[in-house]
């Protein structure tokens, strides 16, 4: 549906050239919700604007719905843009027009008759849950309601693609959830291809099928959201994920020296990641039964869900006979669990309670 190849964007500024995008290749399939995440200044907003030519790439090829966007004339480009809806962080609604007229705006631009406009706008008002606000002005609405108007407006011209530029970044967490649910809903209902630009991993986790992590004008990492979440490769990706999934050690161990070899009184800490059905398996109980003389302490655990796939993360501390600990590592190696050995760490005497599994 969208194919970007070798996209580069260079800005000439008084203080020199700024290389905002340094060769980006991206393919977005029909009906996908594709997330692009990056810190501010990473180039993600420029990238999304290259899709509808609000920013013209300095180099590269942009194919949208089989149209070579770089080669279109002004008027062909205007027609092509009607196929690509866009919503914005600051909503960008006309303050002088009512909710109804804002949603009708793209149709007014195309010269659609007022009868046709009404047939189109009324169901859209229903869809976004603002039927009772049709005659109000944007200033009378909350942020979430304004974004709903933005979404309805973007859908008015029956686009095949929806671009969301930080669409929830100005909203509180509750409202963000409801707006994301609405986007997901219309993605399914209209088989809409959605491109989501954000700096929040939560947004990616909530609705995206695929994600590209953009950093300093290049794509650092990309793939299925589940893969990227459970097995991030790039440092920047790990950082984004750590906002949602803390990578810190439990308080009782935090700050203590991590050693590769056993020290007196220390536990061998392991980070275990269970994915899919393995999250349901009694792996730990089996391990304890299988390894005689093993002590296993569960220090941290959490079970999440990404696209309906259970995703568990756990930190356990092993101690006991050295051979038993080695057996345990071998045992886990043969299971459908990802094991990351943190190292031997001593427990602070002053804090933390512990749960012994077994």
């Amino acid at each position: 549906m969208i194919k970007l190849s070798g996209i580069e964007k260079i800005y000439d500024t008084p203080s020199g050239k700024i290389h905002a995008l340094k060769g980006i290749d991206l393919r977005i399939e029909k009906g996908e919700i594709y997330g692009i995440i990056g810190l501010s200044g990473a180039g993600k907003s420029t990238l999304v604007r290259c899709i509808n030519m609000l920013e013209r790439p300095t180099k590269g090829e942009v194919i949208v719905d089989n149209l070579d966007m770089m080669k279109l004339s002004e008027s062909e480009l205007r027609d092509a843009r009607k196929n690509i809806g866009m919503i914005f962080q600051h909503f960008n609604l006309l303050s002088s027009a009512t909710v109804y007229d804002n949603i009708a705006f793209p149709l007014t631009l195309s010269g659609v008759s007022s009868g046709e406009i009404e047939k189109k706008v009324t169901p859209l008002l229903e869809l976004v849950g603002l039927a009772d606000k049709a005659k109000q002005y944007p200033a009378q609405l909350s942020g979430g309601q304004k974004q709903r108007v933005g979404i309805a407006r973007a859908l008015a011209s029956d686009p095949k693609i929806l671009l969301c530029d930080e669409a929830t970044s100005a909203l509180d967490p509750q409202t963000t959830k409801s707006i994301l649910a609405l986007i997901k809903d219309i993605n399914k209902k209209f088989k809409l291809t959605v491109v989501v630009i954000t700096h929040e991993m939560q947004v990616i986790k909530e609705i995206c099928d695929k994600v590209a992590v953009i950093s300093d004008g290049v794509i650092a990492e990309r793939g299925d959201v589940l893969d990227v979440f459970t097995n991030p490769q790039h440092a920047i990706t790990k950082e984004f994920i750590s906002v949602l999934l803390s990578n810190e050690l439990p308080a009782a161990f935090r700050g203590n020296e991590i050693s590769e070899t056993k020290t007196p009184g220390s536990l061998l800490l392991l980070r275990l990641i269970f994915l899919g059905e393995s999250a349901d398996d009694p792996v730990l109980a089996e391990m304890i039964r299988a390894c005689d003389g093993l002590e296993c302490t569960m220090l941290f655990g959490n079970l999440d869900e990404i696209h309906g796939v259970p995703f568990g993360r756990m930190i356990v501390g092993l101690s006991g006979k050295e051979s038993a600990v080695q057996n345990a590592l071998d045992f886990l190696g043969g299971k459908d669990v990802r094991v990351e050995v943190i190292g031997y760490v001593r427990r602070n005497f002053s804090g933390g309670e512990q749960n012994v599994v077994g």
Partner: protein
Amino acid sequence: MLSAEIIPLLTKALGETIYMVAVSMFIASLIGIPLGVLLHTTDKGQILENFPLNQTIGSAVNAIRSIPFIILMFAIIPLTRLLVGSAIGTTAAIVPLVLASIPFIGRQVETSLKEVPAGLVEAALSMGATPGQIISKVLLPEAMPGIVSQLTTVIIALVGESAMAGAIGGGGLGDLAIRYGYQRFRPEVMLATVIILIVLVQLVQFAGNTLAKKLNKR
């Protein structure tokens, strides 16, 4: 206090002032508002970006605005004669008033248009709007409360400038105040014209504020 012969003079002068201001304002707006749109839209980063054109009209606007009205009035007498057939009289005064107001309105409209958030223009572009549609359906409606306030200021400035029109036989309240109130030592006439001007300006400002407030949905 005011003798009976003064009353008709005052009403006539008030009529002339209103005539000069209204006609000048109307004609100047017809040219000045598009000029303001052009000044804004040809500026850097705007929808019709054109640096040479922007600089040219910007310089012309600045040039006219730097000429004091009383000098402009005499300087363009040949043009006035060409346009209205005479260089003196109330109608003749309208020509310099219009000429002085066009760049003033242009700059005021430009200022109002600059306050329209760039995101709105971007949103309209993303929907496939033409530059004409962006001007007529986004920029002007969104800037309208500001434009109304700014035009109110222009009308008040016109009331002041029209007082100088007496110098070319234009009549009006200012002319009456100078000829009767000053040159014929009739302070009561001076006072009456001043009071009428104050009331006139108050009314214009009040009407402008009310309309701007009504238009503002922000």
